[in-house]
């Protein structure tokens, strides 16, 4: 169906979306790609379900450390997804903007296709414990920073 659907679009000359440029951001496309590659497990609003971690109002926490920033690309759902590097970067940025809430600082540095392409070459082998460890590190760093303040 999908395949035939494509022929249909060809026939009508409807192939309208140009290839994705390096730093483009198209929220509609990002949402669509999120839906197609992520939403099944992470739920429409990023709240997750049972064993699937919550991103809603939380995902930005990972940006507070370099390893955390890399983590968001290296988790299997991202790294091994069928999305191209630029598309994946766009989806990650969209997730942070749309679901991140207060966990994301307004001036966060957006992912680029190049960065994502490099990071996803080494997907994680172990996720759950690493995630806990990362969050613990981030928490202690944050507390440290706060105590310095």
């Amino acid at each position, binding site marked *: *169906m*999908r*395949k*035939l*659907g*494509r*022929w*249909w*679009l*060809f*026939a*009508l000359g*409807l*192939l*309208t*979306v140009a290839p994705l440029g390096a730093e483009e951001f198209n929220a*509609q*496309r990002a*949402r*669509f*790609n999120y*839906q*197609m*590659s*992520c*939403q*099944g*497990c992470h*739920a*429409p609003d990023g709240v997750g*379900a*049972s*064993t*699937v971690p919550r991103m809603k109002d939380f995902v930005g926490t990972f940006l507070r450390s370099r390893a955390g920033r890399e983590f968001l690309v290296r988790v299997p759902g991202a790294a091994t*997804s*069928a999305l191209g590097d630029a598309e994946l970067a766009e989806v990650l940025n969209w997730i942070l903007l749309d679901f991140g809430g207060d966990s994301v600082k307004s001036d966060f540095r957006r992912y680029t296709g190049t960065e994502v392409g490099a990071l996803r070459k080494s997907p994680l082998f172990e996720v759950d414990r690493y995630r806990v460890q990362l969050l613990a590190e981030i928490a202690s760093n944050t507390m440290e920073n706060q105590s310095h303040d």
Partner: protein
Amino acid sequence: MNFLDDLFERRSRQLAQRSSRRGVLKQLGGLLVGAAAVPLLPVARAVAAPQAAPKAPKEMGDESDCDYWRYCAIDGFLCSCCGGTKNSCPPGTEMSPITWIGTCRNPADGRNYVISYNDCCGKSSCGICLCQRDEGDRPPYRSDKTNDINWCLGTASAVYHCSTAIVVGVALDKGAK
């Protein structure tokens, strides 16, 4: 028991038919290339009745029919036949929050929609309207695109009852997955 017989014969017949349908269509010189992707029955049925064209969203066809447009990538029992509907669960079951996603083309408006195939869980196989279309289905290692897995995950019970097909978005026009 006839129903099983029928269902399974139907299943292999469907495969045969789909193949030969495609085969025949090809010989029509591409005339129907687009339409071939469209469930035939509902279309034919819809055309039979003259239509006023209200400017409201529209679907066509019988949601308890395996050929219904939303079911392009489904594999399981149609909840529409089990006391539920195309997008709701039968009484006393629980809809799985974890699922897989496909796109299907609505013949009424020509748009591709993002369809979430949420399973209803907690009672045993509904056993009615077994429908296997598998278009775009991938093996279980591509879990975001597989219908061979029991998607009763994150529900109180892991027991599969039937499958829904819920419109969760409009697909981007890039012939995308």
